[in-house]
């Protein structure tokens, strides 16, 4: 039996990481006993925590069943004992978009950058709604799973991760409404930029996850986060250009808004699916950079607080 060298094995914990590849014995097919040969030979090492901001992907992979179970649980529970059920995933963005269209489109005449205003707004509302849910859920993820955190081990990163995956379903359910508007106004995406749409949503996921790491870790210690988030989410649509075309505001302000990764997500997404004007790529790059910093920084904070989660939560 080999001992995993500390350089090889992630120093904090190594369940599933230090799989030393024990050869599957003849009993490997004994479905009743479930003697996981690899596991039987696995050596786990428990040591003082390392605070490097690592994601420990192989450990996450080992726990993938639990990740899907947590996602499944939250999706099932989300609309339990509601009358309209999953239809809410459709109603919320439609209602929000309608209000925006009436207030900001009809009365305030916000700039639409040449795109039909309802399409423009809905293409902003859908990613924003996703981000808002993902941020709210992930920042509460550790505290709302307090029972798990104090009673059983699994990589804690699973909780914010599951939380940002859950609202993705709502997003997918809302998409047909956007497709309907694309058909109604005949603004089908032109050309190959269509394929970049998932990349921009990916940016939203990374941003949500980074902030989720940061805020959930802070929330363990300071429950103030709970009160900060609704305020933040109220102004965020304005700072991300949900109800106007960013390209139509003064350049200086465009760059200020570009510090917010969600601006890049929304402009890019509009360009990809609505044939809206191409985003300024410098601004997109700035958004991506901020998202990357947020992700690494959030993970670092999460990792450094992680050893004390069970003690301080």
């Amino acid at each position: 039996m080999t001992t995993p060298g500390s350089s090889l094995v992630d120093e904090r914990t190594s369940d599933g990481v230090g799989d030393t590849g024990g050869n599957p014995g003849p009993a490997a097919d004994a479905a009743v006993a479930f003697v996981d040969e690899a596991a039987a030979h696995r050596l786990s090492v428990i040591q003082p925590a390392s605070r490097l901001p690592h994601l420990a992907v192989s450990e996450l992979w080992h726990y993938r069943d639990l990740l899907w179970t947590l996602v499944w649980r939250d999706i099932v529970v989300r609309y339990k004992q509601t009358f309209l059920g999953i239809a809410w995933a459709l109603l919320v963005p439609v209602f929000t978009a309608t209000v925006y269209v009436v207030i900001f489109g009809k009365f305030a005449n916000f700039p639409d950058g040449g795109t039909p205003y309802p399409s423009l707004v809905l293409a902003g509302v859908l990613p924003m709604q996703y981000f808002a849910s993902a941020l709210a859920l992930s920042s509460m993820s550790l505290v709302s799973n307090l029972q798990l955190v104090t009673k059983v081990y699994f990589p804690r990163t699973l909780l914010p991760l599951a939380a940002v995956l859950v609202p993705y379903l709502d997003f997918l359910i809302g998409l047909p409404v956007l497709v309907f508007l694309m058909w109604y106004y005949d603004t089908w995406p032109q050309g190959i930029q269509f394929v970049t749409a998932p990349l921009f949503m990916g940016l939203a996921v990374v941003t949500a996850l980074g902030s989720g790491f940061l805020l959930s870790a802070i929330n363990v210690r300071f429950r103030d986060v709970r009160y900060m988030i609704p305020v933040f989410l109220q102004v965020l649509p304005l700072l991300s250009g949900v109800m106007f075309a960013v390209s139509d505001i003064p350049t200086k302000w465009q760059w200020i808004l570009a510090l917010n990764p969600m601006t890049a997500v929304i402009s890019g997404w509009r360009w990809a699916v609505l044939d809206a004007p191409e985003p300024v790529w410098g601004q997109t790059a700035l958004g991506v950079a901020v998202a990357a910093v947020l992700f690494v920084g959030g993970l670092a904070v999460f990792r450094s607080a992680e050893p004390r989660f069970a003690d301080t939560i």
Partner: protein
Amino acid sequence: MTTVIRADGLAKRYSLGEHQAAYGTLRESLSHLGRRIRRREHHAEAAEIWALRDVSFEVRQGEVLGIIGRNGAGKSTLLKVLTRITTPTAGRVEIRGRVGSLLEVGTGFHPELTGRENVYLNGSILGMKRREIDARYDAIVEFSGVEKFIDTPVKRYSSGMYVRLAFAVAAHLEPEILLVDEVLAVGDAEFQRRCLGRMEELGSSGRTVIFVSHQLPAVAQLCDRALQIESGYVVGNGPPVDVIASYLHQTHSSGTERTWTEDTAPGDDLAKILAIRVPSHEGMPPDVFDVRRPIGIEIVFRVLREGKPVFPKVKVLDQEGAVAFNAMDTHERWLQRSAPGEYVSTAWIPGNLLNEGSVIVEAAVCSIDFPKLEHHAAVYEAVSFEVLDPGEGDSARGVFSGQWKGVVRPLLEWECEVVVPRMASQRVAPDGDVARS
């Protein structure tokens, strides 16, 4: 046998400040920081507690190890480190094999989900793969006995059904190494019996079990070895009976007499216990008592005001912590409203009732608050002493000098008639026949 767990120099430090601020708001923390800067307090001055210090031990495959110790001794912290819920401050543990932990039953049960959904959720949280749960699902449901309600949200379950389902999942967890906390502390007697039975099964099927418990008899019964933790250190490691005995001896080195001052006397506004003593037997050391002679337990207590009828009560435990008996003074004096004053009550334990060994006595002043007894003043593990058989042949063990089990050892009245044996003659006859033929 191979070593499956090797802990080496484990230590865990908690800083007290951290604990206090655990539920604090950001504002409190910021103002605390401000104060610290102004007064130039040094961070290192924050009080620290070492919950574990230099803990080293090994567990071999198939062993059932019990961890005992007082509240706050560090047992739970050790279990949390082993289950990786919290990380050690120093030291290292190597664990070989798949670990399952059970710090409570029903971890992660969601009230809105159905029984079926919760089986999958809970199983997954406890570390089972989906296909494992699939394969064991029917067995789990059958074991739980809630088949009829399996598609009902568990929030509509009775608490008994809930616990049965939760335990059914846990019982089908088949890790190579199982770490169990005082799961047994919850649930009714039937449930506890099933828990213990299941752990015994796991132990005898070659799995390694680490069991943290207050229930000393359970540890004595189930474990192959016990580890005693005291103030974060391992202070005992060996056969359960020895470790438990030495643990009790340390805990109960309280002696045969305890007295309190007015200020420290335990009790509430109705009654306080002032002293407890066990007058020694003539010709014996002060804390050793002759098994054949009555032992008096003297409780001195004060009733502070008129109020509910109160009465003194004692509880007697053996060295494994099993309750030998409870007894209270049923004299009619105690049926009336309590009258203020100081009382000296002596409970006489008859001779030839207790078994040999260490005896622990708890004393209390109670009133009846049906269906419970309300303890106005209580001293747990108040006094302790050793019961000894001088071996003069007139006790319950007669002339036998070997091990004698039992919480109590009464000297029974034996009746015996010598029946002039017709039976015996019949029994002899066939032999005689055989011999003759």
